[in-house]
C-alpha cells in the first residue's frame, strides 16, 4: 500500500501555502514532517487525507487506505471509552477493540465516560482509535500533544508495531519518537507564488 505525492500544491483559504511537495511512503516506512507553526503541515496532511482538494500536482493513494488523526480526537463526551471504540470499530467494520484497549492501557477506564478522562487519557483513546480503523496508512497531526513521557513511549511502540506489520505513517511532530524515520522539512516547500494555482488571484494578476 504505497503513497506517492508528486509536485503537490496545497492551498488554504484560496492562498497557495505549499508547492512542489514530492515524496513516497512505502509499506513499513515512517516519514516525520517538521516545520514551524503555520508552515502548512496541517494543510498538507488534510490534503493527503482527502479533506481538502489539492490545488495542483498529484497524490497516488489507494482508496480507503488513510486513517487520519488530528488535534480533535473525535470522542463523544457522554459515551464511555469502550463505546467510543466500539462505535469506530463498527464504522470501519473491524472488531479489535480489545487489542486497542490493551495497547494504550485503557482496559481499566473502559467503562468511564470520555468526559471524565484527563487530556492525556483522551489523547490515548484517540490514538487507540487508529488501531481500530484497520487502515494501513496513518496520517497524524501532532499525535503526542498532552501525552506524558511513558505514554509517548507507548505510542512509539504502537507505531513501531504498525510499521512492522507492513503499515506506514506520516506524522507531523516535534518530538523524537525513537523511530528510524526519514524527516521532511515542510518549510522548504513554502509557496512563492510561482506555480499558477487556478485560484482567482493568478487569473487576475
Amino acid at each position, binding site marked *: 500500500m504505497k503513497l506517492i505525492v508528486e509536485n503537490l500544491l496545497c492551498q488554504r483559504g*484560496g492562498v497557495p501555502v505549499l508547492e512542489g511537495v514530492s515524496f513516497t511512503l512505502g509499506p513499513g516506512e515512517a516519514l516525520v514532517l517538521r516545520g514551524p507553526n503555520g508552515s502548512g503541515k496541517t494543510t498538507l496532511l488534510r490534503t493527503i487525507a482527502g479533506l481538502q482538494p489539492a490545488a495542483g500536482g498529484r497524490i497516488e493513494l489507494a482508496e480507503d487506505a488513510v486513517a487520519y488523526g488530528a488535534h480533535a480526537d473525535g470522542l463523544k463526551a457522554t459515551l464511555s471509552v469502550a463505546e467510543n471504540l466500539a462505535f469506530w470499530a463498527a464504522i470501519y467494520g473491524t472488531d479489535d477493540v480489545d487489542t486497542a484497549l490493551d495497547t494504550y492501557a485503557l482496559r481499566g477506564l473502559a467503562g468511564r465516560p470520555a468526559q471524565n478522562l484527563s487530556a492525556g487519557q483522551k489523547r490515548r483513546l484517540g490514538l487507540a482509535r487508529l488501531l481500530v480503523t484497520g487502515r494501513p496508512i496513518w496520517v497524524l497531526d501532532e499525535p503526542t500533544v498532552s501525552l506524558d513521557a511513558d505514554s509517548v513511549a507507548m505510542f512509539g511502540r504502537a507505531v513501531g508495531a504498525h510499521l512492522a506489520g507492513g503499515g506506514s505513517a506520516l506524522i507531523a511532530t516535534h518530538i523524537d519518537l525513537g523511530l528510524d524515520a526519514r524527516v521532511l522539512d515542510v518549510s522548504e516547500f513554502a509557496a512563492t*507564488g510561482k506555480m499558477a494555482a487556478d*485560484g482567482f488571484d493568478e487569473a*487576475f494578476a
Partner: protein
Amino acid sequence: MSIWEYANPRKFMGWTGRLVPVFVVLAAVLIGVGLTWGFFFTPDDYRMGATVKIIYIHVPSAMMAINAWVMMLVASLIWIVRRHHVSVLAARAAAGVGVTMTLIALITGAIWGQPMWGTWWAWDPRLTSFLILFLFYLGYLALWQAIDDPDTAADLTSVLCLVGSVFAVLSRYAVNFWNQGLHQGASLSLDKEENVADVFWQPLVVTMVGFGLLFVALVLIRTRTEIRARRLHALEARERMG
C-alpha cells in the same frame, strides 16, 4: 478562443469597462421616457382609475425580480460546473438588485391592489410568492455575509441557490393551491396581459426594456466591484501570509 476566455476576470474588466456607461445612459433614457409617457400621457382606466399608472413600475420590477433569480441560478450552475469566479460574483451582484426589485414589486403590488381589496395587503397568490422570493433573497445574501472564505461562500451560496430555486417553484404552486383553499373568490385577477388596452401597452414595453437595461447596468457595476473586492481580499491574504 472559447467564450470562457471572455469571463476571465481581467478580460471581463476590460470589455465591461466600455459597456457600463452605454447601459447606464440607455437605461436612464428609456426609463425616463417610459415613466413620463405612462404617467402623464395615458388616460385613466375606467375601472381602476389612475392606479393603472402603477403598472409602469409594478410589472417591470416584478419581471426583473424573477429574471434576477433565474440569472443567479444560471450563474451558480456555471460556478459549480466550471468554477468560474466571475459568474458566481455576478450572481452575488444580481442578488442585490433582485432583492430591491422584489421589494419594489411587493410595495407597488400592495398599493395597486389596495383600492380593489380595501386593505394594504391581501394574500393574493402572486404577491405571496413574491414575498417568499424575497425571503429566499434574504437567505442568499445573509449566507454570503456569514462566510469569510470567498471560495467556500461561492460554493455554499450556489448550492443554496439551486435548492432554493426548486423550492421557489414549489412554493409558487403551493401558494396557488393554498389561496384557493382559503378564500374561494380570490381577488379579481390582475393578469396584466388580459385587461391592458394597447394605449397603455407601448409605454409599458419602454419601461420594461428600461428596467432590463438598468438591471444589466447595475449588475455589471456590482460585478466589477465584487471582482475588485475579491482581488483585494487575495492581496490582503497574501500580505498577511508575509
